[in-house]
């Protein structure tokens, strides 16, 4: 009830008006942030002047003058810091992509095994998950690197697999493919097969929509992809020439060399992340209620079709968002490379370049913005995907 005597002058006081208060709060907050920013900026300026550190990004064009253990692009010591950045970024991406691929495979296998009706298998999967997700990833990386790979024998006593793959203290040696006489016909046949597969899938779907008849699409696609390139290889000759690493003197020559740092990092990150992915896969599959399976079976779908057409599409909706955040974690965890000297972005750029140039702010800012850009773009992609597959209800 409003008291007519005190009137709107008391109730409408500036101090208690929610709108005015909201404005005031926001202005205070913005002012506080700006003041803090200015304070930090001012201190930094005077500190930099004091220590005689130049600022700006001109250092990116200076010659780096140090070697890098592994580089996906041509790199020599006389190249610029800018190129060092690219080399580091590519190495980060390499270990991330390898890690994600392997972690996904292990994770899905363990996750499905966790749900196996076989008691022993499901227990084993649980043991795997509980062991590996409760040990710090850095410790796992150190274990593989210092305790396993650094303790490998020298090249002459390498562990070998069929005289083609060698493992020793210098790394993992794999045979590398080169262009053979039949490479081009093989690639062309592969391209034709891919196009034909797409056409086949479209045709099969259109036919099913029109007539209800199904076509064994996956069999057809596999046949196309195997038979066409196979014929090309048989007619035109071997598409690839494999260079097998060979022991000459004290080291191996030829083939691909995977440095032990990369092996340790990939192994540890994929084993660690796989434990989390397995739990995500398990909860995703369990989230599809049993009624769905029963309904599909009573409609006459075979177990394979039930799985592919009913269970997996619904489970994926639950699995994909946390799965992406695990992928992001793996990308961020790949920065642990700095601890064992794998030349990733943090190690060569925020480490070596920072130490050489002393330009801490610029190098750290660049490094952080790369990770931020990766994270934000994947989150945006995720939000878009989530909207697309969100359950459309009546």
């Amino acid at each position, binding site marked *: 009830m409003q008291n007519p005597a005190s009137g709107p002058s008391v109730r409408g006081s500036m101090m208690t008006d929610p709108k005015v208060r909201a404005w005031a709060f926001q202005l205070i907050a913005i002012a506080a942030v700006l003041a803090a920013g200015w304070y930090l900026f001012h201190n*930094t300026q005077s500190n930099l002047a*004091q220590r005689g550190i130049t600022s700006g990004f001109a250092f990116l064009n200076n010659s780096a003058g140090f070697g890098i253990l592994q580089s996906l692009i041509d790199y020599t010591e006389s190249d610029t810091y800018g190129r060092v950045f690219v080399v580091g970024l590519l190495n980060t991406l390499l270990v991330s992509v390898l890690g994600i691929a392997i972690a996904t495979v292990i994770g899905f296998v363990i996750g499905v095994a966790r749900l196996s009706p076989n008691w*022993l298998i499901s227990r*084993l999967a649980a043991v795997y998950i509980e062991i590996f997700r409760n040990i710090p990833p*850095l*410790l796992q990386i150190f274990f593989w690197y210092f305790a396993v790979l650094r303790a490998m024998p020298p090249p002459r006593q390498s562990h070998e697999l069929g005289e083609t793959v060698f493992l020793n203290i210098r790394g993992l040696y794999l045979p590398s493919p080169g262009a053979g006489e039949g490479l081009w016909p093989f690639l062309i046949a592969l391209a034709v097969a891919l196009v034909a597969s797409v056409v086949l899938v479209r045709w099969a779907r259109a036919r099913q929509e029109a007539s209800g008849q199904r076509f064994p699409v996956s069999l057809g696609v596999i046949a196309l992809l195997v038979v066409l390139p196979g014929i090309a290889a048989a007619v035109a000759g071997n598409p690839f020439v494999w260079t097998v690493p060979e022991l000459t003197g004290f080291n191996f020559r030829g083939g691909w060399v995977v440095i032990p740092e990369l092996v340790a990092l990939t192994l540890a990150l994929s084993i660690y992340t796989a434990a989390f992915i397995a739990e995500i896969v398990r909860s995703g599959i369990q989230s599809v209620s049993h009624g769905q399976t029963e309904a599909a079976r009573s409609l006459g779908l075979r177990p394979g079709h039930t799985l592919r057409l009913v269970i997996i599409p619904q489970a994926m909706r639950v699995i994909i968002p946390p799965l992406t955040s695990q992928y992001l974690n793996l990308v961020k965890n790949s920065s642990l490379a700095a601890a064992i000297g794998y030349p990733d972005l943090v190690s060569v750029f925020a480490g070596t370049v*920072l130490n050489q140039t002393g330009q801490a702010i610029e190098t750290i800012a660049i490094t952080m913005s790369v990770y931020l850009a990766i994270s934000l773009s994947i989150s945006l992609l995720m939000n878009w995907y989530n909207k697309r597959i969100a359950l459309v209800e009546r």
Partner: protein
Amino acid sequence: MSTHAFKPDLPPPTLSVGALGWMRANLFSNWFNTALTFAALYLIWLIVPPVLSWALFDATWTGSTRDDCAAGSGACWVFIQSRFAQFMYGFYPPELRWRVDLTVVLAIVGAVPLFVRAMPKKLVYGAAYLLVYPWLAFWLLYGGLGLEIVETSQWGGLMLTLVIAVVGIAGAMPLGILLALGRRSEMPAIRVICVTFIEFWRGVPLITVLFMSSVMLPLFLPEQVTIDKLLRALIAVILFEAAYIAEVVRGGLQAIPKGQYEAARALGLGYWRMMGLVILPQALKMVIPGIVNTFIALFKDTSLVIIIGLFDLFNSIHQATVDPAWLGFAIEGYVFAALVYWIFCFGMSRYSMRLERRLHTGHKR
């Protein structure tokens, strides 16, 4: 009249009950399952006996130097034994280590009443504990006021790991709650500031944050100010974890039905009283498991301080494995480190699962 006596029930077929029945249902239900069982048994046979004989039967347990391990073919636990004190306390002066022990004992004894369900006035006690204990712990660990001062550069081992993890989470909680409230605020400027802060810290790896705190923090502050290495790491960890806590708490805030907000408003409560008395008590209770999970992640992440040269549990053990006097026992060192981290993390994750079951009584159908 003759009475019909029923014959006793036939026992169930021996193959469907008891150990045999269980095995038939769970291990050998069809040919594929049987094959899997044998593959799994083979895998276990391949892994378990060698590991057991390395870690237990062939291991060396007694002695004092590495020569004592020369005879045994298994693990050399003498290495762990001889360095155990360093793994626990770092370079903390041996005659003062009782202070660390006392800090831990006080923490446990003080926290016990919080876990007794029938304890009256739990909230008051908890608040008092949270207000008093940190000062007491700091006084005991660091010194001053009559106790000899132990510089933080001498702290190390498991003790340092626990200090970083506990201070990190305790410092991140209030900041994280404020950020979560800010992110749900109706004022656009506040929301933008909080979202930017949260997304920034969540988007970068902790390792770059630690790098930043060690090389950039000194540049950010006036030149006469020098801050301790441990404090720098703590600031980095608190800011980083606050963003994660904020997201966990936001989940709880979003799960509170709108009616609760409206009811609090209708009672005439202002914003802070509505949040403090109605919304946050419900939301925080709901997200306790999430906070425990964040704490587990933080506990594992404390091992990253090796990058800025602090001697936590992991770094102490790593340094010991590269010590020339004990070269070649890296596996023992890492296995011991893994065991300690595992016990903590596994214990906490079990606890969080139990809490989840206990707390979810009202919301789960």
